[in-house]
């Protein structure tokens, strides 16, 4: 059990949870507005690629983050347009976006970088040290120094929770996901609110991709997202469609991944069996919990103002 006493395990739990947590936050933003977002995986892939490409091209990792935000938002506009205005099936469209994003990033990756892959001198995001906090024994090692997007996540989490609970925007946002008809009657422009909710969700999910590609590493490979978008979707459900809940659920999946890595060095269980862990934990979490939380009332239903 001394694996659990190793601060490195907990530090990497946090680091590995953050990409999922960004996507999960995007999932909450989208589903609270009533759009089921299976496209998180594609948003992450897009963000991961855009971040690396622009960071390598400009020499500035922050421009890479900006590019991820923009590309995530753009791809999400396509998704939002189809689901909100064309009333296309959310799941089918989401899968389509994933296939499109995987294909496009794979194509661009090969067209731009060829077999050598992304340049090795691509700048990655800075690691920030929290002065004072990093000196606290044990805890300091866990939360004291991480890449910048880890800390920015918490700012975003607090901002979003505040928007949801305390602002008129948050009220409209939740209203269109719970009861679009009533929102419509109250004068809320339902379709527009849904559209921008989904677009901003895509931007946030793409940040998760960026933290994956230029956060801890500084490279991109076509299958690097590896189902994290779907794990994030599970985190949304497990976290009962709340920002904080989604983050805590992401921590659970981050822990499963971190544990799999740690156990590789201290146990003689085969690597490939350990790597199944986060995926199995996701299935178990869904099977064990669902039914006790419920989605926003109009989640997944296209809204037709004419009816």
């Amino acid at each position, binding site marked *: 059990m001394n694996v659990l006493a190793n601060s490195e395990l907990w530090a990497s739990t946090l680091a590995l949870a953050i990409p999922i947590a960004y996507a999960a936050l995007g999932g909450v933003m989208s589903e609270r507005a009533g759009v089921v977002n299976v496209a998180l995986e594609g948003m992450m892939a897009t963000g991961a690629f855009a971040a690396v490409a622009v960071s390598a091209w400009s020499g500035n990792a922050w421009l890479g983050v900006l590019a991820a935000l923009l590309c995530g938002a753009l791809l999400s506009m396509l998704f939002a347009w189809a689901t909100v205005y064309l*009333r296309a099936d959310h799941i089918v*469209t989401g899968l389509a976006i994933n296939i499109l994003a995987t294909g496009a990033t794979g194509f661009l990756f090969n067209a731009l970088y060829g077999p050598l892959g992304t340049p090795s001198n691509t700048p990655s995001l800075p690691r920030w040290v929290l002065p004072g906090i990093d000196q606290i024994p044990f805890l300091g090692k866990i939360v004291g120094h991480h890449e910048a997007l880890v800390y920015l996540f918490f700012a975003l989490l607090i901002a979003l929770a505040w928007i949801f609970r305390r602002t008129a925007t948050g009220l409209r946002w939740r209203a269109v996901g719970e009861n679009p008809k009533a929102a419509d009657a109250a004068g809320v422009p339902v379709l527009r609110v849904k559209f921008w909710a989904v677009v901003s969700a895509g931007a946030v999910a793409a940040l998760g991709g960026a933290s994956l590609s230029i956060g801890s590493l500084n490279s991109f490979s076509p299958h690097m997202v590896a189902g994290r978008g779907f794990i994030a979707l599970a985190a949304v459900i497990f976290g009962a469609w709340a920002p904080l809940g989604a983050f805590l659920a992401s921590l659970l999946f981050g822990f499963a991944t971190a544990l799999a890595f740690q156990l590789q060095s201290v146990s003689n269980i085969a690597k490939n069996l350990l790597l199944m862990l986060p995926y199995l934990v996701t299935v178990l979490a869904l099977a064990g919990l669902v039914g006790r939380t419920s989605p926003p009332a109009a989640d997944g239903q296209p809204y037709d103002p004419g009816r």
Partner: protein
Amino acid sequence: MRGVRLLWPLLAILIAFAVGGLLTWAFGHDPFSAYGALISGSLGSGYAISTTLTDALPLMITGLAVALSFQSGLFNIGASGQYWLGAIVAVWLGYSLKLPTPLHLLVCLLAGALAGALWAALIPGLAKAFRGANEVITTLMMTYVATYLGHYLIEGGPMQAPGYTPQSPHLLPSAILPNLVSGTQLSVGIFLAPLLAALTWFLLSRTRLGFSLRISGYNPRAARYAGVRPVVAILAALGLSGALAGLAGAVQMMGVDHRLFDSFGTSYGYTGIVVALLARNNPFGVLLAALLFGVLSSGANAMQINAGVPFHLVDVIQGVIIFFVAAEGLMRYLRLRSGGNS
């Protein structure tokens, strides 16, 4: 309306090729020579056509798997995982059992189907039926588990062949599907595709079980009134879908690969989805749609070699096709815009 239903997928294909052409052009290649290389590489010779059919076969069967689940109102997006389970079990029995040819083939195929069925029904199916767990997530998660299982088995696990290469032993000759066109990889497995399509069609539209599945997919509440037990419908739909996907893996191993090696991926499930949606979940349409993707797949390498366009262009084309198929409402929207009534 029926005309529109057929027209729209064709239009989606055209738009996708146009987008692909633009992308090719934007990267400094000639789109016409790229598509020329693609066509001649996939249909230009007997060998090319055999390769196209070989590539289309697993897509036909996984496409049927996905279509069956979609028609039942369930999103089995983990066909890849069930495919690999079928592949693993078929290979294992294919090199370890000693049986006369026809029996050995039958045992391997059926065991592959059974493995795929269990992989889909046992965990995602039961979790959905009794706990309401979203099958979109669980079936995909089980795909990753399946690929790691495959890696484990041949990288130091119980199925690794003697030596250092991560691969399983070769199948015994009695477990190999006979070759159809010598000098190519096309096996008699290709005849299974129309047979399975006909069976799927018969099951869905001519049997009581198929009716229960479709009504559950169309309207779960009506299904309950009609006396369909949701648990049974879910397990049957995912189990049958998984069986088809598992069979696809078995056929691929017994007809083409002849052993497990490090080729585990998740792409069959995704392409299966594209195939099913493009075909509007019609079993015979699935055969045609898979043929199109067989052309894209076998022509892609020729396109990369002869025109210098990365074969990932094919994935972009797939993505665009499927986006437009999904955004079918676009048609209605455009018509409203132009003032017509629909």
